[in-house]
């Protein structure tokens, strides 16, 4: 899959991990992260992403394979010598220390003198706009404030690499979005390399340079956010990220204009991804917002399907329309709520179509 993982800043080279000696949690991880990159490991729980992060931080040892940091193998380096900043899911601020003491901790254990320490602490606190909170205890801070302090503590000793393990999981939506922006800003300002673990796809899409989608102990796809969303390489990635419609059918024609014949007999336009032969059975995935029902919005000679409107849910920015298409009752079409938008009514029949590039015939069945 990955021919040469090269000499990135962080390199996972054929890394495997098993906890019980029977099953592999991480199956064969090859990943190269460039210096200054913001890489997100995205996946459902149990997909191995957190294990990878823990191996990188040094809290778990790889069962096989090499992990390299800045060209140096770190499998045998204990966590405190790796010099990696880490932000934990529940902040892990030391409750018996004040904010300033929390930030002083990594500096003290490095033997940094008092005056330099104070300068660094002030700078780090200012960086997260928490300059006035040095004397507080973590318990006296709100979740968002604790998160900022955890961030400042991970950055105060100027690590080159910062790991974040679902750091925003405990915050409410608005705060989370704000913090995403803050983290991204710090990443850009400081030029640090960030490895970020999350199961929240929105978070991954907004922040990352590249996203590694994990499932079943493997990276399913490694790509920048737009590529991941628009050209998913397999069914898991397509369904894990964003909403998608699935239509089952058989490849009718492969070539400049590939066609898939649905089980109900209709022909649709599609782009083959992992299927190559005529006659192969496959699932076609189409994003709801790429489905059109007005002929002038579709490419010329697009194949169209009969659809009956079952339900229109008004969601403010979009009209989420559920259609009965080719024997399926939950085909979703998202229409932008613009001034001239045609309002569909339940019971109405329309013909829907799409651009061939948006319908991806993914995995063979």
């Amino acid at each position, binding site marked *: 899959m990955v021919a040469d993982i090269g000499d990135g800043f962080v390199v996972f080279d054929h890394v495997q991990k098993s906890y019980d000696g029977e099953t592999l949690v991480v199956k064969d991880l090859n990943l190269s992260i460039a210096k200054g990159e913001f890489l997100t490991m995205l996946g459902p729980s149990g997909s191995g992403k957190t294990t990878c992060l823990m191996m990188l*931080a*040094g*809290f778990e040892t790889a069962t096989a394979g090499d992990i390299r940091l800045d060209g140096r193998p770190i499998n045998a380096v*204990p*966590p*405190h*010598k*790796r*010099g*990696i*900043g*880490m932000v*934990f*899911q*529940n902040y*892990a*601020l*030391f*409750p*018996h220390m004040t904010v300033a003491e929390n930030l002083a*901790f*990594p500096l003290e*254990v*490095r033997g940094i003198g008092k005056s330099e320490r104070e300068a660094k602490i002030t700078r780090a606190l200012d960086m997260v706009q928490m300059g006035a909170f040095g004397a507080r205890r973590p318990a006296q801070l709100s979740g968002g404030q604790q998160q900022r302090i955890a961030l400042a*503590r*991970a950055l105060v*000793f100027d690590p080159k690499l910062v*790991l974040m393990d679902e750091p925003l999981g405990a915050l409410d939506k608005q705060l989370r979005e704000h913090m995403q922006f803050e983290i991204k800003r710090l990443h850009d300002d400081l030029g640090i390399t960030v490895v970020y673990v999350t199961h929240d796809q929105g978070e991954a899409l907004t922040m990352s340079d590249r996203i590694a989608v994990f499932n079943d102990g493997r990276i399913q796809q490694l790509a920048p956010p737009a590529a991941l969303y628009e050209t998913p390489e397999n069914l898991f990635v397509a369904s894990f990220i964003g909403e998608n419609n699935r239509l089952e059918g058989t490849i009718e024609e492969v070539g400049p204009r590939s066609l898939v014949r649905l089980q109900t007999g209709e022909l649709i336009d599609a782009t083959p991804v992992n299927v190559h032969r005529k006659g192969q059975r496959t699932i076609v995935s189409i994003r709801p917002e790429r489905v059109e029902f007005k002929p002038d919005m579709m490419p010329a000679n697009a194949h169209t399907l009969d659809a009956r409107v079952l339900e229109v849910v008004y969601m403010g920015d979009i009209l989420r329309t559920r259609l009965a298409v080719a024997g399926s009752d939950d085909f979703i079409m998202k229409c932008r709520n613009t001034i001239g938008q045609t309002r569909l009514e339940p019971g109405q029949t329309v013909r829907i179509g799409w651009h061939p590039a948006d319908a991806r015939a993914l995995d063979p069945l």
Partner: protein
Amino acid sequence: MEGRPLKQALARAQSRAKRRALLLVVPLLLFIVVTFVAPIGQMLLRSVHNDAFARNMPNVGAWFAENDGAPDEAAYSALVADLRLARENRTAGEVGTRINYELGGTRSLFTSGARGADDLEPPFATSLVEDDAKWADPQLWQVMRTASHAYTASFYLAALDLTRDGDGNIVRVPEGRAVYLSLFAKTFALSALITAICLLLGYPVAHLLATLPLAKSNLLMILVLLPFWTSLLVRTTSWMVLLQEQGVINNTLVATGITDTRLPMIYNQTGTVIAMVHILLPFMILPLYSVMRPIRPHYVRAARSLGATSWTAFRRVYLPQTVPGIGAGALLVFILAVGYYITPALVGGASGQLISNLIAYHMQDSLNWSMAAALAAILLAAVLLLYWLYDRLIGIDNMKLG
């Protein structure tokens, strides 16, 4: 303008609920008063109040109230009158016992004095002393003067190895008869040692309990609690079996050639310490465990990722967070150890006895309950002092018992 003020309305609205709540706790309140407050109050009273002499010897008491200094003929005649009264009421033994607490060997003086009191002729100052020369002892008169008041501090003085000489000055008791202070010191020192050993042994176990997966930690927890479910006597006796001169441990040590002489490990301080550590260990482990359980491994991991060695991470991050448990466990074990009775009584021998054994002796053998009460009150005061100290140093609201 709303009529009644808001506060009044609130109090009225809540009064019914408050009454009902009070009704629910009344049984418990009564139980505590009857079984806890009253006995302790009575014990404290008994430690300063003993009217065995004052009640039965009214005449000499009246003389003490009016006169200072050495006894004259009037004093002796009052004493003889009281001795005759005591014979009549059969209270001479009671009176003698009271004086005997403070001046050894005087109980028989009173009983035989009362028997012979009817035959005495005045002047009593000579006839009584002729009967027994001890009646002229100035210290006896000093003790009687003290005892003529129902309320007295003399039990506390005795409990602190102090006494009054013939002139009423407070002095130390002679070297050979001083037992209490050194025993208090030994009790506190041994309790501190037991607490320290419990902490050293219990801390790793509690940590293991808190970090192992649930199935394994449950098994370990059963092992920790097992001693709780076994009779105290059985546990103590099994230590006898293990530790005695011909016991399992000594046999093993000699058989393997580690030592030639058999070690005296029981019926002395060593035995008391070993057996009490074993019995009190769960009281250290459980509070520690309850404090350690919620400490997530994230903290130590965070410390490690921030550059701390595992020792620094433990010392600066983990240990400080367990201080409430250490405090609670140490306080609990220490207080239990200070008052422990049965184990030292069984395995302590002569050198392993603690203050509680002496309290028991005064309760059961010498029947000097006032003395027992004074010793117990001093123990209680010391424990309260300790508690206060703990509150000042660590803060009682930081304590977690489970």
